[in-house]
């Protein structure tokens, strides 16, 4: 196998993985930007989206509609969590917010276990989704799922870009992220903006969950936790609170993980998670504002 093709294959893998991380990281970053909150429960919206898609398909809905409904369920779950658990503690110390979101994760994952049991379930896909494309005699392989992941991520990111730069609500969201008090002063309905932010962020997570389940072939109640932690790393690498930073960080992290698995000796690659989180700690210590953000003092 030629090296160029091997590298090309790894680039495809990195883009597919990075897209998922970016989708989750952007939502985390949006919520952090507005509320200064590290939302651990964000990963569970992936679980909600994936299970909703699974159930609706089982009820006879077509795959496309089930995906759209799954995204909507993810968004709805995010809005409900915000209303029930996060709004009452808004403005509390950072750690209180973080602990509240940890408790929400705990509740949602156990609800998942209660309803669907803790064992994973097969995630059914229409046949055309599993089509694999092979180039150069199978030296480069990618599936319809990879293509769909990239296309849907690009579409989601494009519409998000349009939303936050061209619409009043999107501009308001950015204003609230900049300075919540001032946004309130100029008459923006901050509560509504926060609800919209949670809906968009959680919808993205729902989409990521569906794509994740499609790639893995299974859904389980705790499926959101690992990608959430990785998305954290991505968001912080890029600059926590910045949408562009989360995008960059997500893809960089995807590339890094593939790099570790594909190019480092097999004695090192099992330590992938340790390397990734050591990188996170290094960033927190030496460049806590990430690659893209500069201002803002957050140490000691």
């Amino acid at each position, binding site marked *: 196998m030629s090296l160029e093709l091997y590298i090309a294959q790894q680039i495809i893998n990195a883009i597919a993985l990075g897209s998922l991380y970016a989708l989750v990281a952007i939502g985390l970053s949006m919520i952090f930007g507005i509320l200064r909150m*590290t939302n651990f429960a964000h990963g569970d919206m992936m679980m909600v989206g994936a299970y909703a898609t699974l159930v609706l398909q089982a009820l006879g809905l077509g795959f496309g509609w089930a995906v759209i409904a799954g995204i909507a369920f993810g968004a709805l779950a995010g809005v409900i969590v915000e209303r029930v*658990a996060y709004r*009452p*503690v808004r403005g*509390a*110390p*950072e*750690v*209180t*917010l*973080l*602990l*509240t979101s*940890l*408790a*929400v994760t*705990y*509740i949602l994952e*156990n*609800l998942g*276990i*209660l309803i669907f*049991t*803790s064992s994973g379930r097969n995630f059914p896909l229409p046949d055309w989704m599993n089509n694999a494309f092979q180039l150069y005699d199978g030296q480069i392989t990618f599936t319809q799922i990879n293509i769909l992941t990239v296309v849907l991520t690009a579409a989601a990111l494009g519409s998000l870009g349009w939303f936050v730069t061209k619409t009043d609500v999107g501009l308001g969201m950015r204003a609230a992220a900049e300075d919540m008090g001032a946004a309130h002063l100029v008459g923006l309905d901050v509560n509504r903006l926060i609800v919209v932010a949670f809906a968009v962020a959680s919808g993205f997570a729902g989409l990521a969950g569906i794509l994740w389940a499609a790639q893995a072939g299974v859904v389980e109640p705790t499926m959101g*936790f690992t990608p959430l*932690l990785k998305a*954290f790393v991505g968001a*912080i690498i890029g600059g926590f609170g910045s949408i562009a930073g989360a995008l960059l960080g997500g893809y960089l992290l995807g590339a890094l993980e593939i790099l570790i698995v594909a190019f480092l000796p097999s004695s090192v690659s*099992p*330590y*992938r*998670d*340790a390397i990734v*989180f*050591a990188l*996170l*700690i290094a960033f*927190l*210590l030496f460049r*806590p504002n990430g690659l893209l953000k500069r201002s803002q003092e*957050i*140490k*000691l």
Partner: protein
Amino acid sequence: MSRMQRLLVIVAAIVLLGAFSVGAPAMMNDYLVRVVTVMCVNALLVISMGLANGFTGVFSLGHVGFVAVGAYVSGVLSLTDANKASYLPDLPAWIAAIHLGFLPSTIVAGLVCVVLAFLVGGPLMRLSGHFVSVATLGFLIIVNNVLINSDTYTRGARTFTGVPLETTLPWAMGWLVLGLIVLARIVYSPKGRAWRAVREDTIAAQAIGIDVLPTRLSAFVIGSFFAGVGGSLYGHYLGSFSPHSFYFAYTFSLISMLVIGGMQSLTGAVAGVIVVSLLSEVLRNLERGFDLGIFTVPPVYGGSQIVLGVIFILIMIFRPSGVMGDIELSFGRLAALLHRGRKEMNT
């Protein structure tokens, strides 16, 4: 209350607890003894976690990482030679040659955690707020990842087994009492005041000459010692465990005890352990389903965790400083309460 009286009360309390811990197995059934033993180990872990998290305000999510290290270190050191040969055949000879009893291996586990806490805390204690939480969470994940991949020392993701079952109630309670005495001495000393000053206002604390980094680090390191000790106790209680035993689920249950009880007082931490442990035991029995005569309640697995999570959130909303807040239940306060009650009765 004079010094002498207080000393007498403390000695009497310790003697009573000692008699209880030794005599309890004869009076209670095995199930209750097990519950109380686990409660003591958890209480030791929660009060030590409260040191950094509650008193200095540096909320670490990595405490269970130290617990894991403690459990594995003491486990490796106290395996019998036969078990070492069959479970960990590739162990380097110098480690395989070491064989320590329960107490020495527990102390070594604590000391290893102290060294690790210096290395980890040195840089991490510079961070504040959620950044330190996320970074210490990273530490927990790294520990888990390394444990899973160090087959030679830990059997990897497989169950580490054959650890002698030595954590009896007197041991667990003894360590808990020791931990409480040591921590109470430190927390209510000038050092402890410095911790709280750093928590309340970092800049003001610096202004009066408190060095923030060493202050935070001391709380983190002392807490980690007891985390290692607690890990060893837990390991010698379980007998067999895997890296998964010391991960997010355990982290969350310890945090919920700390937060529900109140992380700014030792009493709160202990109260949280008692409340949450008893509640989970009751709920766990309910969740298996029960028969009310008229209708049968079906089993709802996972229900107990959901109830616990909801209580956690309610506490965060309505009483974020926990049930106890920063109130300590001390003999002096008890005496004062009794005294006041008596005076009111007289008037």
